């Protein structure tokens, strides 16, 4: 096992997944044996000491989430706890979970077994977006092999722990990736988010305590068990543990995934991706997908972890950077994001259902040069009124307002310049 690149170190250049025997030959599933000799509480403490933050976007501490899960027999009602692995990656600019599912399926299965044990779950589900067909079949093959080797099923490796693990292929709609919408989807409903509280750890799938973890979070768990919390924290350059599977795309010369210490800077990541393409000069970047606020060249040396990105008035999100050069207009990029979020809204909450299409229309009008000053006021009002948490059941609207609000605050002059005949960058005026 690679010491410094635990997540991707064992991947093959052609992304072909390992068989169970091949995976075991590189140390795979040793962590399952070790974990099953620990108690669930010891496991949660270990992951707590490692300071593993959830990699799905919000950065919530994995151990904190796990600790909310009641032990067997201590929650009201009957039935098991559930562990759900979220592989519904659909954020604009995010392409990391595809890689982990396709190239390293046993790593995901291994992590799921350990996380299920730690959360007292006897039933686990890996939800994967329909488009990731190679990932779906790789995970299904890995599960079948693990079942045949008694790494899943009844009395796993003689430990007394039982776990049923299955794949749920989804069928489109970005909102499915929101954890309570995902629970609605698994129960056979439309993927509509639920009001919290109750949180999924109190009442999730079928009303049972449920933990939802991202594919990358789950993939890190076996390595923490194998090499310890100290090692995991030492991988990082900041307080937040581990490596991060970053990505760089947009206007760079060699767009790619990069596993690097948590807290690596955007400057280093963009350099490793071959530098800025197009004009060669950076205008701005989104640190972690379409829903993260824009940052500017002044933020290039800020460590990219959840805490530092929040302090810089953005978010780490998925850690997959979208890079804009001087020749790329952030109004145009925001317009495309907004059209996406408008289309993908489940339509339940009014600010999201009505506000997003309106914002998308105005941004398109700005690009075309048909917007009015009042339109910009409406954009400002939308971002201010619908951006804060709590105005909608979930954070789709709030997330979508991140790039919009930062566009207005950081690039206000550029936005207003669009009133005079459309995009000045496209017309070669800037």
């Amino acid at each position, binding site marked *: 096992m690679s010491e410094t690149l635990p997540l991707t170190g064992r991947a093959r250049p052609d992304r072909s997944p390992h068989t169970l025997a091949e995976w075991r030959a590189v140390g795979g599933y040793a962590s399952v044996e070790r974990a099953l000799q620990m108690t669930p509480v010891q496991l949660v403490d270990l992951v707590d000491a490692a300071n593993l933050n959830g990699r799905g976007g919000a950065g919530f501490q994995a151990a904190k989430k796990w600790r909310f899960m009641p032990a067997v027999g201590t929650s009201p009602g009957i039935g098991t706890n559930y562990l759900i692995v979220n592989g519904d*990656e*659909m*954020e*604009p*600019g*995010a*392409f990391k*979970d*595809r890689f982990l599912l396709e190239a390293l399926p046993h790593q995901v299965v291994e992590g799921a077994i350990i996380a299920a044990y730690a959360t007292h779950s006897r039933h686990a589900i890996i939800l994967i977006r*329909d*488009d*990731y*067909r*190679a990932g779906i079949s790789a995970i299904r093959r890995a599960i079948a092999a693990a079942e045949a080797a008694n790494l899943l099923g009844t009395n796993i490796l003689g430990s007394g722990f039982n776990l049923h693990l*299955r794949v*749920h*292929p*989804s*069928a*489109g*709609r*970005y909102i499915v990736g929101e954890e309570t919408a995902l629970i609605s*989807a*698994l*129960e*056979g*409903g*439309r*993927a509509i988010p639920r009001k919290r509280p109750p949180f999924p750890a109190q009442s999730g799938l079928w009303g049972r305590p449920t933990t939802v973890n991202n594919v990358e979070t789950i993939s890190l768990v076996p390595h923490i068990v194998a090499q310890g919390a100290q090692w995991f924290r030492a991988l990082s350059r900041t307080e937040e543990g581990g490596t991060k599977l970053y*990505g760089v*795309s*947009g*206007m760079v010369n060699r*767009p*790619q*995934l990069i596993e690097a210490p948590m807290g690596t800077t955007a400057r280093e990541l963009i350099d490793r991706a071959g530098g800025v393409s197009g004009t060669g000069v950076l205008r701005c970047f989104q640190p972690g997908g*379409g829903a993260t606020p824009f940052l500017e060249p002044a933020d290039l040396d800020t460590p990219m972890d959840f805490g530092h990105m929040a302090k810089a008035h953005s978010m780490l999100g998925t850690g*997959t950077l*979208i890079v*804009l050069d001087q020749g*790329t207009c952030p109004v*145009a*990029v925001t317009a*495309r*994001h907004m*059209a*996406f979020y408008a289309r*993908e809204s489940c339509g339940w909450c009014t600010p999201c259902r009505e506000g997003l299409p309106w914002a998308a229309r105005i941004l398109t009008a700005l690009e075309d040069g048909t917007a009015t000053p009042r339109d910009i006021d409406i954009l400002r009002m939308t971002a201010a009124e619908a951006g804060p948490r709590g105005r909608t059941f979930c954070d789709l609207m709030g997330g979508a307002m991140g790039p919009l609000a930062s566009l207005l605050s950081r690039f206000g002059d550029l936005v207003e310049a669009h009133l005079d005949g459309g995009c000045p960058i496209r017309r070669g005026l800037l």
Partner: protein
Amino acid sequence: MTLPEPLKSQILHAVAEDGGAKPAMLEALRLVQQAEGWVSDARLAQVADLLGVSTAELDSIATFYSLIFRKPVGQTVIMLCDGASCWMNGGDALRDALMDRLGIGYGQTTADGRYTLINSACVGGCDRAPALLIGPGRRLVGPLSPDGVAALLEGGL
């Protein structure tokens, strides 16, 4: 035509696996689509009947999830990424080349029934922008230039 036998048992297997008829609704629709390319009104009613749910409830699922097709699609479905990274790297030119060559817009199928073109949420191929997914395996193709469209459609890519 009644629901063919292999499909019927596959759906019942999904009911067992997913823990009931309701949670298996989406999988049942996926299975029909996998076999026939889309979900017709007749199939919808037959599946609802098999599952013991109302046609309206099943259709509310079928119409919510964007990748369940409720009208016929071509033999090969092309899903072109409309994410920002693909747009920055020539996504519009690729879109125009595909539409020109196929003579259709988004959501349409060629007259010979060979291709359907759909705009897709980010396909998770930002490192290969501009990218698209093609065929039943949703194979990721990219970076694809407008010049590469002909080769793609002739099976050369």
